[in-house]
């Protein structure tokens, strides 16, 4: 299988900062808790979407990354393929803690619904009204070669017109998102080397 595809846009979320391409578009206070950073970065967008505040940290980060990278972008035929290392472990731990004390068990349904990492894809899909292919994978490190082949397959098989790919890792205040758009037109070739380069910056 061979296709000509390109990386057309990128977003990085880490250390209380959001960068689209090479430009920092939002910067919070260094070392501020993720919840505060996410809330302020969301408010900075001036988007009316109260559901954001109900999301877990992983979904908030994926949502923010998608929100910033998809500004002014065509969303028709946009597939989503994301990966991370910890799955939904951060929320799994919080849910487990709520059922630890057998004499005082009040698990939160709103927490429980986020004990699946692919829920963040659903949040992005609902927000942008995507009814397209989506997949979430758990790997130790970002599988650039696998993701490159997977995204190209979606394009060459006409299952998608463009693909939002990337890494969304969150566990107990340690977080990093690297998202990129793959399209059939562009300048920067969608190669494993160029994908790996995104993770070096």
């Amino acid at each position: 299988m061979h296709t000509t595809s390109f990386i057309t846009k990128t977003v990085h979320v880490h250390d209380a900062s959001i960068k689209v391409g090479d430009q920092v578009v939002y910067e919070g206070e260094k070392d501020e808790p993720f919840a505060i950073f996410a809330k302020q970065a969301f408010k900075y967008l001036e988007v009316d979407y109260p559901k954001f505040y109900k999301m877990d940290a992983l979904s908030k980060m994926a949502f923010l990354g998608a929100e910033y990278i998809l500004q002014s972008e065509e969303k028709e035929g946009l597939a989503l393929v994301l990966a991370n290392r910890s799955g939904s472990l951060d929320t799994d731990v919080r849910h487990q803690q709520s059922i630890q004390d057998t004499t005082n068990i009040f698990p939160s349904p709103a927490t429980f619904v986020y004990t699946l990492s692919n829920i963040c894809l659903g949040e992005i899909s609902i927000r942008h009204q995507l009814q397209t292919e989506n997949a979430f994978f758990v790997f130790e490190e970002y599988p650039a070669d696998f993701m490159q082949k997977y995204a190209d397959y979606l394009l060459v098989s006409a299952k998608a017109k463009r693909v939002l790919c990337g890494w969304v890792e969150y566990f107990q205040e340690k977080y990093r998102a690297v998202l990129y758009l793959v399209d059939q037109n562009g300048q920067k070739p969608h190669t494993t080397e160029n994908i790996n380069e995104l993770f070096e910056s």
Partner: protein
Amino acid sequence: MAELKEELKGKIIEVLNLEDVAVEDIQDDDALFGDGLGLDSIDALELIVLMDKEYGIKLSDPKQGKSIFQSVQTMADYIAANRTK
């Protein structure tokens, strides 16, 4: 009763993460679902947990929920009549 309703509004805002809603924004008879506060099905489950955790009320019949969760007023009425803590 007025105190209970104020307390309930505060707990609903806190438990449901209603970020831009203040206690004074919620009228006693405002619809909690639909066009009112716009709560969803997961919020309904959270309200059931809230009733159990804070007031010792276990709702075993889902049909009861529709009338109990109409508004803060209906919730407060039910809590006042059935609370065990």
